[in-house]
């Protein structure tokens, strides 16, 4: 282990311990604990989309569909087995990951032939179809609740779970990006024809990037389902896909650090505005948010952090 790796590990453990103590002694109250978990979940999801769009350059607007698949499958498992044993969450996460991965493969193989905007529209269409399936899922499996929403999911997600999965997610994506696979993905983003000309199997790598990115969404969905113990199809509509897209564009495409910081800042900004704004202008929360968004894009069209990366996330 190099010196830097040791330093990074110590830092990660220190961050965990500090936050854990803050939560344990209620300095971070349960409400903000939940927001913190949500921020981590958004970060995981955003890392997945960053792999698809930021690194591979495949414009996908259907991320919420895979998020929903992971959420509903894992919720169905823990609700059916009917246990509050936290280990069921691991099973849920793995199952959610596998199913999102399979669906992503089946969808990705045909539609990844499309380029830029057309791919975006096709994935958007897929997302809307999935939302309609969630809306009507109770016709086949009543416990999924359909448009009435799914209740009675055990609240198993807490800071430790989210943090562990998050660290694993960052580790996997960092190593992936710095491997030959990562270089193949980036070469597809830069110039697909040139990548093909130097012998990169573009279909294979595009699909691989897409599937891994969607698995991230599925994992994030499984954590999300067990955070609020309530699922509704509206949580997985196309606006949710756009939220993730916003995060990665604001954070700077192809930057792990930017994605993480922006995802966390985004979750806290949306909730923070709720606390900071006085009662009288609370309605303005969702007016101010898009204004901030527009201003950031006008001032920093390449994202807040551009392509900046923390040292420990870079390759040697």
């Amino acid at each position, binding site marked *: 282990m190099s010196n830097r790796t040791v330093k990074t590990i110590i830092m990660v453990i220190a961050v965990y311990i500090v936050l854990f103590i803050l939560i344990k002694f209620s300095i971070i109250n349960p409400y903000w604990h939940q927001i913190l978990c949500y921020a981590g979940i958004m970060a995981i999801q955003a890392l997945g989309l960053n792999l698809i769009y930021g690194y591979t350059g495949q414009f996908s607007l259907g991320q919420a569909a895979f998020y929903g698949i992971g959420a509903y499958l894992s919720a169905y498992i823990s609700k059916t087995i009917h246990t509050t044993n936290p280990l069921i969450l691991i099973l849920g996460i793995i199952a959610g990951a596998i199913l999102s991965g399979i669906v992503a493969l089946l969808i990705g193989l045909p539609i990844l032939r499309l380029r830029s905007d*057309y791919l975006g*529209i096709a994935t958007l269409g897929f997302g809307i179809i999935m939302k309609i399936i969630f809306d009507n899922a109770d016709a086949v499996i009543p416990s999924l609740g359909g448009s009435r929403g799914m209740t009675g999911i055990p609240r198993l997600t807490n800071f430790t779970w989210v943090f562990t999965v998050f660290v694993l997610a960052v580790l996997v994506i960092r190593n992936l990006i710095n491997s030959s696979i990562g270089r193949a993905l980036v070469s597809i983003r830069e110039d697909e024809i040139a990548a093909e000309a130097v012998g990169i199997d573009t279909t294979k790598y595009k699909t691989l990037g897409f599937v891994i990115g969607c698995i991230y969404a599925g994992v994030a969905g499984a954590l999300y389902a067990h955070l609020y113990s309530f699922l509704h199809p509206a949580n997985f509509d196309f606006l949710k896909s756009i939220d993730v897209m916003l995060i990665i564009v604001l954070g700077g495409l192809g930057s792990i650090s930017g994605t993480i910081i922006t995802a966390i800042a985004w979750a806290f900004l949306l909730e923070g505005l709720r606390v900071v704004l006085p009662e009288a202008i609370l309605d303005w929360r969702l007016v101010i948010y898009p204004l901030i968004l527009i201003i950031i*894009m006008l001032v920093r069209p390449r994202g807040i952090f551009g392509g900046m990366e923390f040292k420990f996330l870079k390759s040697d």
Partner: protein
Amino acid sequence: MTYLLQQLINGLQLGFVYALIALGYTMVYGIVRLINFAHGDIFMIGAYFGFYLLGRFKLPFPLSILGAMLGTAILGITIERVAYKPLRTAPRIAALITAMGVSLFLEYFSSLKFVFGPNYLAYPRPFPIVNYNFGGLTISNIQVIVFGVAILLMLGLHFFVIKTKTGMAMRAVSFDKETAQLMGIDINRIISITFGIGSGLAGAGGVLYGIAYPQINPFMGIMPGLKAFVAAVLGGIGIIPGAMLGAVIMGVVEVLTAAFLSSTLRDAVAFAILIIVLLIKPTGILGKEATEKV
């Protein structure tokens, strides 16, 4: 059989409203290659302008629809100037995200109590409904007006784009921006005009939607906006007749699905068709195959 024909007419009514929105999408995309996500919300604001002009100011219907078109045209031009113009040289995704921001802003700003308010409003009826009967088929005067206004506007647009000098400049800019500029075309003016016309058409669509499906709220533009965009892609984005064709197909398919299969599936079928068409012919029904230069 009569039922099928009746549903076809209802589908055409919806399709013509979609067409008015889709034209704006396709024109804007053709010229600046931007998916203007805020376009559906301009449609919504057009419906509200019509609501106030008809309901509060008691203006006659033709004046109301012209007023709504003028209002949305100004709004569209303003949005382009403020939000999209500075990003013309930035990466395309930046403008797309800004368009989403504008869309959210219009929706939530309209929801504020002192603007339009978050609730559903019943649309005023400018005239009593009259139903005409043709051998079992019922056509209401509202349908006649929707068809009439939509066809009139589309013919007007077609004439404008084909016959006038500005229309020719628009086609030139959409074909090749740099060369058009070298030929002395004022790009900024053309882009503004395009946004103005597109937004005005969406505004007219909003008023027609309001009188045909008389309930409006600040989020009513999301789904019609998306579907109109899908229609534009279906017909071949950037191609004006393609947008009309795609929109009519979308409207008819949606109404027929609701009538013969299930109303919960109406949106799913529309988007399933989109994916299938994209896979078979990514450039859309009327789109020309572009060969890739290496």
